[in-house]
């Protein structure tokens, strides 16, 4: 392969997944290099650089930016191979990790075992101190007590390999002085010991969620630091001295060094990468409302874009009972992927997922030993997948094995094999539709006004039918749908998010300091991003919000305000500059409107309370143009294949290679559009058009086309 060794810059994005590591590199003229290699879970840096070596991009100063989306922190949490952590709590509340929230996941599951905390009980130290709900100090933290605690931490960590400390005291989100004092004492006495404190990691109320988040930060810290420092070393040794970073759960790029400082913020790095790219392609086809669906082998991740922007959430659970209370891209993950297993329950109903055949043994048709019928097997039997062109032809799919796997299911349902296959796909589509409904409706959004951006290996195969069933507007299939996550890391902005608790009644004079605090927070956030940026001329934008609720409610809604430059995404909203004289009144007004839009009513006579303020500083990645497909020159000729369309009807579908399609070209369904990393199904009555951005847009057929 020819090297593009000229001095102009490449931007490289890598998605370090559990099974595969994907790399996308974009060159100065928009040319694209793609590479997929098996992951090396215990030394993730190895696969990363292997992919780079194989990609045809010269490692070195020619690489201007090198960004990773990684599941390393996620996997440490799931596989429980993190650091030994000592937790410091307010004395009397040492068992917060064991008590949790006292509910359970399955209503009728008496056998359910509560999630084991990341810190065992004998590694928790109670600290004699107490802050009250208004921030006043009831029991001061004395120097003697701090000294005693430090000694206890020393004892507990002696002989432990790479330990860490988490500090989470009651009401530290109102008054952090005791946490800060402990952190100082620890760092002074034990300088090598990493310390995570809750008032910095997650300054929000609800002590269990905050403590657990802080503990997770400490738990993943040593492994993530090792990872980032080995990445940094490898980069240096290859003279890659550009912008080297990771993608955070909030969808922003962060330097390797900063990622290691607050590693809990990269827990959803891998998921965020996919969503960022989904949002990017939604923007490319100029849609302001879209649902992103990243459907891979074992799971499907659903996100929402309104006003052109991804949504954020304040809570994510690693498993039931282990929450992460951080602003993260709002993603709903369900166990529905190509590898999801179909079965019949004891009432005779068909179920698909959440169990997955995974990559190994995989669907029955992989021929790797899997026997359970999966969604991929069903698609193969319906003619929607090409047995000879799967993963660029690197894997042959075995239809006989698929058929054998589905036969018992068909018998139990009283169907023939093809109809059973259709039923499996249909249930899997409803599973995804359910997730999309929930995600949109949670926010008072009507999904029928939304486009569906479908990607991941299996997304384009199901997207059109999901949209059809739900009455969504149209489907957008990005280029190289199987590698979209790697692409997402490239295009993400650099980003810093900060929150601060500020409880004020908007109808009282005390609310006067909201705009003042907001401005201060915005400045701090911008400054922090400025430190992280290499270029002084980088454009930095800051948006702010105030989370409010009716006095008496217990959950907040974030009301956007505006600071710095005009926030494009919020053109529709009434912008409230913090220096506006009627800031608080307008904030209240916006809150009533937002509440009404979300839940169908407002309560204009009820007082409103602010709970916390937030600011986000963003510096967008430089624009780039890409040419993902070599395009028009390709000679692969179209063919026709029999495909089970719906309700038992087999149709002759046109089969084309995606890289043969020209911009502006239209393919009428039924059609199958194949490419190395994914397959797109265009049902009868739909047509796919190749958009300017090289996305496919699929809509009910208009009267024109091929």
């Amino acid at each position, binding site marked *: 392969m020819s090297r593009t060794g000229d001095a102009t810059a490449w931007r490289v994005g890598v998605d370090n997944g559990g099974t595969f590591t994907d790399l996308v590199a974009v060159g100065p003229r928009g040319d694209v290099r793609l590479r997929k290699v098996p992951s090396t879970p215990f030394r993730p840096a190895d696969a990363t650089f292997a992919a780079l070596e194989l990609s045809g991009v010269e490692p070195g100063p020619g690489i201007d930016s090198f960004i990773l989306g990684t599941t390393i922190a996620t996997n440490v949490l799931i596989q429980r191979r993190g650091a030994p952590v000592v937790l410091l709590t307010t*004395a*009397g*509340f*040492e*068992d*917060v990790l*064991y*008590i*949790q929230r*006292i*509910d*359970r996941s*399955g*209503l*009728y*599951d*008496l*056998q*359910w*075992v*509560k999630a084991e905390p990341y810190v065992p*009980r*004998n590694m928790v130290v109670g600290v004699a101190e*107490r802050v009250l*709900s*208004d921030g006043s100090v*009831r029991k001061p933290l004395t120097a003697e007590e701090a000294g005693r605690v430090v000694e206890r931490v020393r004892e507990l960590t002696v002989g432990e390999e790479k330990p860490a400390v988490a500090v989470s005291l009651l*009401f530290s*989100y109102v008054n952090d002085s005791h946490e800060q004092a402990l952190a100082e004492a620890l760092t002074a006495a034990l300088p090598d010991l990493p310390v995570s404190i809750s008032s910095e990691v997650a300054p929000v*109320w*609800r*002590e*269990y*969620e905050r403590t657990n988040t802080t503990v997770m930060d400490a738990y993943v810290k040593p492994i993530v630091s090792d990872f980032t420092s080995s990445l940094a070393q490898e980069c240096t040794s290859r003279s890659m001295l550009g912008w080297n970073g990771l993608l955070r759960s909030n969808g922003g790029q962060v330097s390797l060094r900063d990622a290691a400082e607050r590693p809990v913020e990269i827990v959803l790095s891998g998921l965020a990468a996919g969503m960022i790219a989904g949002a990017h392609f939604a923007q490319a086809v100029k849609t302001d409302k879209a649902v992103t669906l990243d459907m891979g082998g074992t799971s499907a991740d659903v996100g929402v874009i309104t006003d052109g922007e991804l949504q954020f959430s304040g809570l994510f659970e690693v498993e039931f009972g282990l929450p992460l209370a951080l602003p993260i891209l709002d993603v709903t993950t369900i166990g529905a992927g190509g590898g999801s297993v179909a079965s019949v329950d*004891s*009432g*005779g*109903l*068909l*179920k698909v997922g959440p169990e997955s055949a995974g990559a190994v043994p995989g669907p029955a048709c992989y021929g790797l030993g899997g026997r359970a019928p999966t969604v991929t097997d069903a698609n193969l039997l319906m003619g929607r997948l090409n047995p000879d062109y799967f993963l660029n032809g690197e894997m042959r799919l075995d239809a006989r094995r698929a058929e054998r796997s589905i036969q018992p299911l068909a018998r139990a*349902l009283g*169907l023939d094999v093809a*109809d059973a296959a259709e*039923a499996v796909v*249909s249930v899997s589509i*409803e599973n995804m539709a*359910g997730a999309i*409904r929930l995600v949109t*409706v*949670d926010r008072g959004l009507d999904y029928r006004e939304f486009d569906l951006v479908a990607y991941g290996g299996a997304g384009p195969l199901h997207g059109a039918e999901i949209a059809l069933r739900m009455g969504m507007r149209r489907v957008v299939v990005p280029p190289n749908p199987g590698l979209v996550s790697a692409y997402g890391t490239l295009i993400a902005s650099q980003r810093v998010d900060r929150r601060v608790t500020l409880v004020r009644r908007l109808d009282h004079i005390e609310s006067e300091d909201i705009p003042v605090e907001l401005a201060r927070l915005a400045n701090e956030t911008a400054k922090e991003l400025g430190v992280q940026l290499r270029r002084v001329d980088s454009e930095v934008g800051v948006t702010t919000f105030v989370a409010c609720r009716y006095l*008496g*409610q*217990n*959950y907040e809604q974030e009301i956007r305000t505006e600071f710095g430059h005009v926030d494009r995404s919020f053109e529709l909203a009434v912008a409230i500059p913090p220096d506006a004289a009627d800031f608080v009144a307008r904030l209240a007004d916006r809150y009533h409107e937002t509440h009404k839009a*979300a*839940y*169908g*009513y407002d*309560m204009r006579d*009820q007082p409103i309370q602010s709970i916390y303020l937030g600011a986000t500083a963003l510096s967008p990645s430089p624009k780039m143009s890409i040419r993902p497909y070599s395009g028009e020159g390709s000679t692969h000729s179209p063919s026709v294949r029999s495909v089970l369309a719906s309700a038992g009807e087999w149709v002759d579908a046109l089969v084309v290679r995606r890289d043969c399609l020209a911009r502006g070209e239209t393919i009428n369904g039924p059609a199958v559009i194949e490419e190395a990393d994914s397959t797109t199904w265009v049902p009868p009555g739909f047509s796919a058009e190749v958009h300017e951005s090289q996305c496919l847009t699929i809509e009910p057929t208009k009267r024109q086309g091929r």
Partner: protein
Amino acid sequence: MDGAASGGAVDRVGLTLLYKRLRNICDEMAFAMMRTAYSPIFSEGLDFSTLVLDRNGRLVATAGINPAMLGASLYAATWIIREVGQENFSLGDVFVHNDPYRGGSHMPEHMLVTPVYHDGELAAYVGNIAHLAEIGGMAPGSFAATATDVFQEGLRLPPTKLFDRGEPVRDVWRIMLTNHRTPDNTWGDIHAMLGSLRVGERRLADMLSERGVDGLNEAFEQIIDYAEAYMREEIRRLPDGIYTGEDCMEDDGISDRPYWIRSRIIVDGDELIFDYSRSDAQAVGPINAPYVVTLSASLNGLLYVLARDVPVNAGIVRPVRVVAPAGTITCVKLPGPCVGGQTEFQPRVMELVVGQILSQILPERASAASGNTSLNFLFGGVDPRNGEYYAHYHFEGMGWGGRAESDGNSAQIVPHANCRNTPVEIFETKWPWVHENYRLNDDSAGAGRHRGGLGIERILEVAGDVITVSALCERMKRSPWGIFGGSEGSRTNLEVSPAGSGDYRTFQEAFGLVSPSKFTNIRLHRGDRVRITSPSGGGYGDPLERDPYAVARDVELGFVGRSSARAHYGVVIDAKGDLDEEATTELRGRLADGVE
């Protein structure tokens, strides 16, 4: 099964899809309620359910939030529809109802129901049931443990219009808001319930435009039939026979005597009868159950061991009959009080069914007794920080019983409910208390091959001038039982320590009460402290069969004390804290022979 799916197999797939959509609608309704509610019992505790009902008021789908509300979910809406008469409903009507003598569970739980129309035709109903934290009556928090009739338990509402064709019926609102101690909360919480109904209406409208009224109701019928067939299949697998068991409520708050619940389960082919007719006459105090609570407890017990994935709807009750004669503690007669039936009687009966009766045929799915009390602790007063009146209904987690494959979970809500705790930080922000601690109660669990889970200890200090407290709980006189050789768990305790004193006495001793666990309107003052100790679970199986390394780990973590390890498990831990295998084998041998 064929009878259940007479529409044919393709319809069966359609049915799965339809049921999923209905469940999603219920989840959406629940989410809206959680996000907008005022009382932490909604927003943190999630003490509510959301329902979709067919045009006859039969339950079709429910968001599984709180199983305790199952019985009411099946009957309360039916009551409204039958009593009011379907012909008297109009578009935009919303009915409220909390009457335990009309299909409700207990008075704090309010049901809202609204009819859904399609092209002018009544098509279905959506509803929800939620626990309002304060509804008046003789004690703040509306959980009057010393009530002797239902009129002392709060404001009782038969099916009543809250909205008439979309317009609020102001007189009714004003009656409710006047009789509740915290009208702002009622206002906010009822609005949260109304918002949830609107979400449900909007979603059902989509389905109706796809299928029409008859089409949708036919599908509802199929979903109900499916659940019935599922239950029949599960029951058929059980050996026919009559199985019996008993347990009791330890007192009713009025006199110091137990009330016995005697149950027999008759498995009869694919049908099953729960017969409670040999139970004690109803109590004077509020531990009685309305019929739906006994029904709920029985069905929940069944679902825990038989069919935990069955769609919960009107179909599940068809193969099951519950006999609970009126006038017994299992079916209270007017005007008997019953607020504690839902929280104390129901879990007692549910665990009697699971752990004492069905365990005879399904030991591997059974569990020893949990702490088995909701540990209701109520309080109200004026918050010195803002001069406003507040009231709260607090409940506590406890230990679950040991199980065939695992120890009981510690600090877990009583199994017939699925509520969450209120975080200390929200607790203290909302109400004038300061916690001294909130921790697990060490060395308290019932020993067993799989031990019980630990209860908790919570010490609270009064930070207002006066707080009026009440309690309604159980397991202060009788311990949670173990099964298959497991030991009893520890008991509930409610104690008080006057300001400045370090000594704790039970409320009973301190205030000269009839019952240690059921009392109302005790006035506490600034600096007084309350210690709540929740019970731990019973053990499952012989403690001498417990993996000695698991015991050693429990000792290391402080869950089990060194001497308990020795006395109950025959496990010897050496001076370094490690397991002494040799000494353990020898001690276990002697204990098994009854030597020590």
